[in-house]
C-alpha cells in the first residue's frame, strides 16, 4: 500500500499586485508521500475548481528542477525544507502526517507579487541585459578549440553557470540582495578567456543595475548559498567583489 499523509496548508492569497493579501487555510487528506509538492498543489487546485473556486496561482513549468520558474517559500525556506532542489523536486515524503505547511511567495523588494504565489522576477532579466553577456554577434567567431581552457577553470565556470535564475538567493537574504545571482554570471565569464575583454565593464554595469532595481547589499550571512537549489557557492561573491573593486580602482 502507498503511504499517505493528512496535512493542513496555510497559503498566501492575494488577488493582485495592489490588493491586500491574507493566509487561507486548506485541509488535504490522503496525499501520497510519493507526490511532488506541486502535484499536491495540483490536487488542491483540482478540488478548488471542482467547488467552483479560483485555484491558487503559482509559477512552475519544467517540473524537473532546471527552468527556475517555481518559487515557493515553504515553512520559511525558499524551495522548502530539502536541500539542493527546487520546489518542483520537493516531495511530500519530506513532510509528516498532521503537519501544517505554510506557503508564501518570494518576499523581496525586487520581486513584487503578481497574484497569490506568483511574483515578477523581471529584475533578474534586466540585470543580465545590463552586462551578463559577451558582446559578439552570430558568425565570424574562432574555432571552438582555438582557445584551450584549463579544465579546472571550465569546471568552476560551469559550477557558477548552473544558476537557474529562480530568485531563491534574494528571497532568502535578509537584505534582499541579488549578489549570488550577479556573482554567478560575473564569475562564470571572468573565469573564461572569452570573458576577459569586458570583465571590468561587466562587473560595474551589473552591480549598478542591481542597486538601481532595489536589491540590497551583501552582508555575508550565507543564507543565499544555503538555500540555492543549485548549490552555487558564495566564493563567487568573493570573486565578484574582487572584480568590482579592481574595476573601480582601474577607473
Amino acid at each position: 500500500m502507498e503511504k499517505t499523509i493528512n496535512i493542513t496548508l496555510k497559503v498566501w492569497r492575494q488577488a493582485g499586485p495592489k490588493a491586500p493579501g491574507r493566509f487561507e487555510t486548506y485541509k488535504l487528506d490522503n496525499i501520497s508521500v510519493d507526490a511532488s509538492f506541486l502535484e499536491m498543489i495540483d490536487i488542491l487546485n483540482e478540488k478548488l475548481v471542482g467547488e467552483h473556486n479560483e485555484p491558487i496561482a503559482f509559477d512552475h513549468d519544467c517540473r524537473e528542477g532546471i527552468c527556475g520558474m517555481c518559487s515557493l517559500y515553504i515553512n520559511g525556506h525558499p524551495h522548502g525544507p530539502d536541500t539542493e532542489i527546487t520546489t518542483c523536486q520537493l516531495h511530500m515524503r519530506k513532510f509528516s502526517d498532521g503537519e501544517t505547511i505554510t506557503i508564501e511567495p518570494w518576499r523581496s523588494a525586487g520581486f513584487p507579487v503578481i497574484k497569490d504565489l506568483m511574483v515578477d522576477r523581471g529584475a533578474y532579466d534586466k540585470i543580465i541585459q545590463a552586462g551578463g553577456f559577451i558582446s559578439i554577434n552570430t558568425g565570424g567567431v574562432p574555432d571552438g578549440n582555438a582557445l584551450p581552457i584549463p579544465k579546472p577553470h571550465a569546471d568552476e565556470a560551469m559550477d557558477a553557470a548552473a544558476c537557474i535564475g529562480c530568485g531563491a538567493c534574494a528571497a532568502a537574504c535578509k537584505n534582499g540582495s541579488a549578489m549570488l545571482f550577479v556573482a554567478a554570471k560575473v564569475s562564470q565569464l571572468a573565469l573564461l578567456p572569452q570573458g576577459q575583454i569586458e570583465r571590468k565593464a561587466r562587473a560595474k554595469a551589473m552591480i549598478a543595475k542591481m542597486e538601481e532595481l532595489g536589491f540590497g547589499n551583501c552582508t555575508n550571512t550565507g543564507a543565499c548559498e544555503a538555500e540555492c537549489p543549485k548549490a552555487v557557492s558564495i566564493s563567487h561573491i568573493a570573486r565578484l567583489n574582487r572584480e568590482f573593486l579592481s574595476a573601480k580602482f582601474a577607473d
Partner: protein
Amino acid sequence: MMQEQATAKGTAIDAKIPEGPLAEKWTNYKNHQKLVNPANKRRLDIIVVGTGLAGASAAASLAEMGFNVLNFCYQDSPRRAHSIAAQGGINAAKNYPNDGDSVYRLFYDTIKGGDYRAREANVYRLAEVSNSIIDQCVAQGVPFARDYGGLLDNRSFGGAQVSRTFYARGQTGQQLLLGAYSALSRQIGRGAVKLYARHEMLDVVIIDGRARGIIARNLVTGRIERFFAHAVVVGSGGYGNAFFLSTNAMGSNGSAAIQMYKKGAYFANPCYAQIHPTCIPVHGDYQSKLTLMSESLRNDGRIWVPKKKEDAEAIRAGKLKPTAIKEEDRDYYLERRYPAFGNLVPRDVASRAAKERCDAGFGVGSTGLAVYLDFADAIARLGEDVVRARYGNLFQMYEKIVDDNPYKTPMMIYPAIHYTMGGIWVDYELQTSVKGLFCIGEANFSDHGANRLGASALMQGLADGYFVLPYTIQNYLADQIQVPRMSIDLPEFEEAEKAVNDKIDKIMSIRGNRSVDSIHRELGLVMWDFVGMARDKEGLRQAVEKIKDIRKEFWANVYVPGKPDSLNVELEKALRLADFIEIGGLMARDALQREESCGGHFRIEYQTEDGEALRDDNHFSFASCWKYTGEDSEPEMLKEMLDYEFIKRQQRNYKA
C-alpha cells in the same frame, strides 16, 4: 542506386530545394539569395514567437543584423523555455576525437536515424552548419566539458558510432539556452529586441495572403493585444503534451501550430512522435509530468530485466531486490538483440524493446512497467567518482524523485513521450505554406524524419535560429522593403482579435462540471493507449472517434473559473487543451493513413519477423501535409514526395 520511386503524383507542394550536388546546395543558395541592405533592415519588423534555442537564437541574430524584433514567450523570462531541460548534449561534425566523423557521416546518421523520412538537402545543411554552432557557443562563454589539455571533450550518443556530442555536464540544454539568452539579453538591452514575456500568441494575422502580425494575450492582465510585423517566425516547440504526461514542460503546447494550421499552414507528419526510452516510470494517478533521464546514461549504464518470469514477479511484489539477481539470470536484451550498437541503439528501437519485455511479463517496479538501467559495472570499471563526475546531477535528480540511491541499486526507467518530429511544414527556407510565416526548431517538421537522434534537437534549434533563418528570411524580406508598417486597426487585425475574444467567451460561458485537467488526462490516456508506442488500424480508428467525443465533451462540459480579463491559469490551460484535442485528432488520422512502420511510428501490422519497423518506400516515401478545411470538415492530406537522390535507403540495421 535509388530504390524504386514512389508513384503518387499530382502534388503542388514545392520544397524549393536548390539545384546542384548535395554538398553545394546551401552554398549555392547563399550565393544567389536576395539580401536586405542595412538601411532597409531598420525599417523591417519581425515577430519571433518563442525564446527557446530556436526562438532566442533567431531573435538575437536578426536583431544583431539590424532588424527590429518583437519576441514573445509565455513564461516570466526567456530563460525558462523548455530547451533548458535538454540534458545530454549537442552533435557536431567537428571530428575532434579523430574517430572518422565528417559532415557526410553526421548527415548520413541523421537521415538513417530518421528512418529515411527526412529531406536530404535539409539534413545535409544541418550537418554542414553544426560546427559553426559549437564555435558560436564557445565564443558566448558556454562552459562545455573539457579534457585535461583544455580542449573540448566529446561523448558518444545513440545511433552513432563516433563521439560527436559536445556537452556541459548533464545540463547542455541549459547552457546553450543561457548562451542564446545572453545574446538575446544584449539585444534587448540595446533596444533592438522588444521582449513580451508572459504573453501567449493566440492567432496569426493574415493580410492579402501574407502573415503580418499576431494576436497575443497578456497573461498577467488578460488583455488581448495586436502586434504588426513584416514577417512572423514561430519557434514554439513541440506538441507532446497532447499525451498529458510527457517530458515537456507543463506549459509546452501546440497552440501556435494549430493557429498557423488553421490559417493555411500545412501540419506535416503529425504522427511522428518520439518516445524516449529512459524516463522515470509513472507512479501515481496524480502525476503531472514525466522526468527524463538523459540518454547519455546509456553510454555507461546497462539495460536489463530478469531472465526468469518468477524473478520479475518477485521483484514486483517487493520480495526480491535486483542486486540479488545473479548475472546469468539477467537479460541484457539490447546487447542480446543488437550486438553492434548494444545499449546505444536509437531511441525508438530502445523504447519498443522495453515495451516488448514488459508486455511479455518481465517488467519490474511495482507496476511492471519498468526496466533496469544498471551502473554497477561502470562503477566497478571506472570508480564511483568518475561516474559521479559524468552523471552526478542526474543521479541526484533520480534520488530526489524516487528516493532510491542509483549508485547502490539500479535505476528504473520506462519510455515516455518526449519530442515531436512532426510539426508545421516548411520549405527549404523554413517558410510555411503561408507567405511571410516561418517556423523553426521543434515546431517545424523539417530535419528529423520519423525519428530524432539524441543530441540533434539542440543542433537543429540552434542551426535554424543562428545560421539558417537569418539568411533565408532575407530572401523573403528583400521584396518587402517598400511595405510600410501597417496599422493594427486594419480590419484583419480587428477580425482576428474578435475571433479570439469569441472563443474565450465561449469557453468561459460553458460552465460545465469538468476541470480542464480531467479532460486533458482523458485525452492523454487515449493517445497513449492507441496512438503511442504500438499502433494498429482498429485502435487508431477508435482513437479518432474517441477524440471526437472528447472534443464534444470539452466544448459542452468544461468549467473555467475566474474572469477572462485577468490572470487566469485555468483559461490558459483550456485554450491549450482545445488545440491539443485538434492535434490528437490529426496524429491519429496521420498514423492511420501511414500503413507502414518507420522510426517513432510503429504499426503492429507492419513489422519484420524479428519485430523491427518495416518501411514501405514504394507507397509512403512522402511527408504527409495536412491542410485545414474548416471547423467541422475532415482535413485534406497532401503529399510532399521524398526523393532520395544521393543515398540509398536501407532497412535500418543496428544489429551488425
